[in-house]
């Protein structure tokens, strides 16, 4: 399935990291940013580039990790970093990778592996930038990783609802009030599975959560070494947007996985596997925690009634009991039971 020329473009060697003590000590996302206390997305940046290493360029579309990280005369990035437009994470990755490819192919620059990582927030990636990411995942000649850091709102702008905001959450575009207790009635987009299912030539798609740091870094390494365009969707608790004590960021990431709200999975060369605690849940080795434990720690769900919590729980239960692939593909299995036409 490799295109003939793909083999001529060198790929980096990045071995899996065996345990947190084996992680590289070098930091390429350092001081110089002004993210909020407890910002999980800042940790995502740090782990992402720690895993990728110094022969990397990073493109950042508009969002928290642009505005809060890079204020002129100050940058946390040790590697080259460039802003791209809100909906352009896919195009920035393609343009950068295509530029390197052309220059290397024509002998205008040294032929060597260069990691191209383009990140976006949820409104930039799962909403506005979706079509560009979709196109980027079709251009199999270009090696790059698109990383979506999902803090479930337009958190930099003022915490507005997006297609990735969970059902019922309070945002500044979905407040709660006497006439409308539940303002945001959309269910969160299933972005990673949509992209994996929709782009059969894309060799790697994964969901991650930085609460599981080693798993996180190894998914980044796999995405960068497998070749072609790849996509990672990271679940990032946000104290400002979700209204909780900053000390709980790590715990909320774990709870999202343990309640089954955020399934950890990867699709590698057409093979889907759940991993980490999500795998344990699917195999019955880990009992899913009630979503109440997760929801009630956050101010954005403080207006939920018992009925709201039950509704949320029922939807999550469906994910694990009714979906064709638990936590991944939201179809009923009816078609498999149909009798084929004679």
């Amino acid at each position, binding site marked *: 399935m490799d295109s003939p020329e793909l083999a001529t473009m060198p790929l980096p060697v990045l071995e899996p990291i065996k345990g947190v003590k084996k992680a590289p000590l070098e930091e390429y996302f350092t001081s110089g940013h002004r993210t909020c206390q407890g910002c999980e997305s800042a940790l995502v940046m740090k782990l992402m580039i720690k895993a990728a290493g*110094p*022969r*990397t*360029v990073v*493109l950042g579309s508009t969002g928290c990790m*642009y*505005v809060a990280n*890079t*204020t*002129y*005369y*100050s*940058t946390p*990035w*040790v*590697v*080259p*970093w*460039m*802003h*791209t*437009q809100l*909906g*352009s994470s*896919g*195009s*920035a990755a*393609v*343009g*950068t990778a*295509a*530029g*390197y*490819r*052309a*220059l290397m*192919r*024509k002998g*205008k*620059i040294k032929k060597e592996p*260069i990691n191209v990582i383009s990140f976006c927030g949820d409104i930039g990636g799962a909403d506005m930038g979706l*079509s*560009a990411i*979709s*196109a980027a995942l079709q*251009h199999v000649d270009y090696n790059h990783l698109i990383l979506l850091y999902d803090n479930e709102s337009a958190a930099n702008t003022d915490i507005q609802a997006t297609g990735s905001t969970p059902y019922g959450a309070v945002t500044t575009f979905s407040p709660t009030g006497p006439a409308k207790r539940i303002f945001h009635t959309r269910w969160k987009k299933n972005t990673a599975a949509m992209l994996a299912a929709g782009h059969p030539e894309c060799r790697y798609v994964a969901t991650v959560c930085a609460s599981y740091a080693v798993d996180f870094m190894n998914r980044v390494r796999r995405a960068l070494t497998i070749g072609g365009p790849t996509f990672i969707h990271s679940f990032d608790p946000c104290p400002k947007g979700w209204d909780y004590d900053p000390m709980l960021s790590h715990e909320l990431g774990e709870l999202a996985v343990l309640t089954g709200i955020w399934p950890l999975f990867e699709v590698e060369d057409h093979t889907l596997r759940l991993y980490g605690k999500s795998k344990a849940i699917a195999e019955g080795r880990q009992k899913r925690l009630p979503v109440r434990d997760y929801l009630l720690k956050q101010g954005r769900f403080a207006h939920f009634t018992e009925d709201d919590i039950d509704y949320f729980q029922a939807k999550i239960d469906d994910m694990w009991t009714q979906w064709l692939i638990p936590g991944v593909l939201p179809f009923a299995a009816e078609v498999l039971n149909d009798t084929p036409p004679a």
Partner: protein
Amino acid sequence: MDAETATAVTVAAAEQEALISGSEAVAVASRLADVDVITAYPIRPYDTMMQYVAKQIANGEQDAEYIVAESEHSQFEIAKHASAVGARALCGSSGVGWCYAFEAIAVTPALRLPLLAMVGNRALDDPGAFGTEHNDALAARDLGWMHVWVDTAQEALDVTLIAYRVAEDRRVFLPCAISTDGAFLTHSQALVKIPPRAWVDEFLPRYDRGDLRFHPDNPITIAPQVNEDWLMEIRRQTDQAMRNARGVLEEAYRDFRRIFNRDYGNPFFEEYYTDDAEIVLVGMGTLSMPVKVVIRKLRAEGQRVGFVRVRWFRPFDYERLGGLLSRFQAVGVVDRDFSMGSPYNSGVLANEIRATLYGQPKQPPVVSFITGLGGREVTIPNVREMFEHTRKAAETGASPRDTLWIGVRA
């Protein structure tokens, strides 16, 4: 044989002639310029250029990354980012497609990325129209793009090479839009001299982004948040780059004349029978064809009329153009565009000309015309009519207080 004749002989021997359209001429220029990354998206009429490029690549005549984007926004963003790593990039669009890319178009000048875009000028539908109108390219008038309007397929080829040289000059580093009138130029064939690659290599150095190159060996942060602390200084730098482009353009045209032996005279505007003219029309693009025909007829009748075709709209050569136009008894400005509600309800070019003349000691009356919208043909009678109105203004010495729509149903 003297040196000049010898050069001419070499020219004749080395250049090949081909019957090609304006779109194809840009495609040929992109091959000669060894463009690295080309991004395409279909919209008429510019897209014929991308079709020719694709064919050249398929035939093994051209080597470039050819990316069919999923939208014009992505098309311009991909080209922008390729340009940032040091790749020579080409994109283009028409009409509302250009508008769809507008966010990328808006940010590219401040990033100082010298990509080229061909604009096949087209009406902004709705209502649907494939034909020429200049409002698409002009919508980006104030953003820091260089803008040039070409008139012939030969000029399209030559200016593409010149534009790369100027855009990629470190003193400039600005993107450039090459406007070609939809259908009239994009789809009209003419004999074009195609220079050999060796001449192009001599004329056009490699794109060297230097210490602004986006590469692991050069760890820089590009386009962070600057806010009120720095934005104004950066705007001032971009403004300076556009000012610099005037001189760099002159240099490039001089060198072009030396290497290719084709002389465009003043790079910024073309003069046609202006030496003894009493009145002139001013316009851009393929309008020159009917206007030149009428001028020859009117001259035969003894009327001293002329034409000035603005080539480089940004940077605008207001000094020399102002000096030239102030000589005439009246100036008629022909806009193939509109700027509704503007002073005199005129098109964009007319008010640029008014502003250009304001600083001149002698200010002839300016008559503004809007015509040829949506690709409607500007006919010989239309041009005669515009000359008559301009003549009238010369006689009365007064500028009309409104704009005349020519060739429109009542």
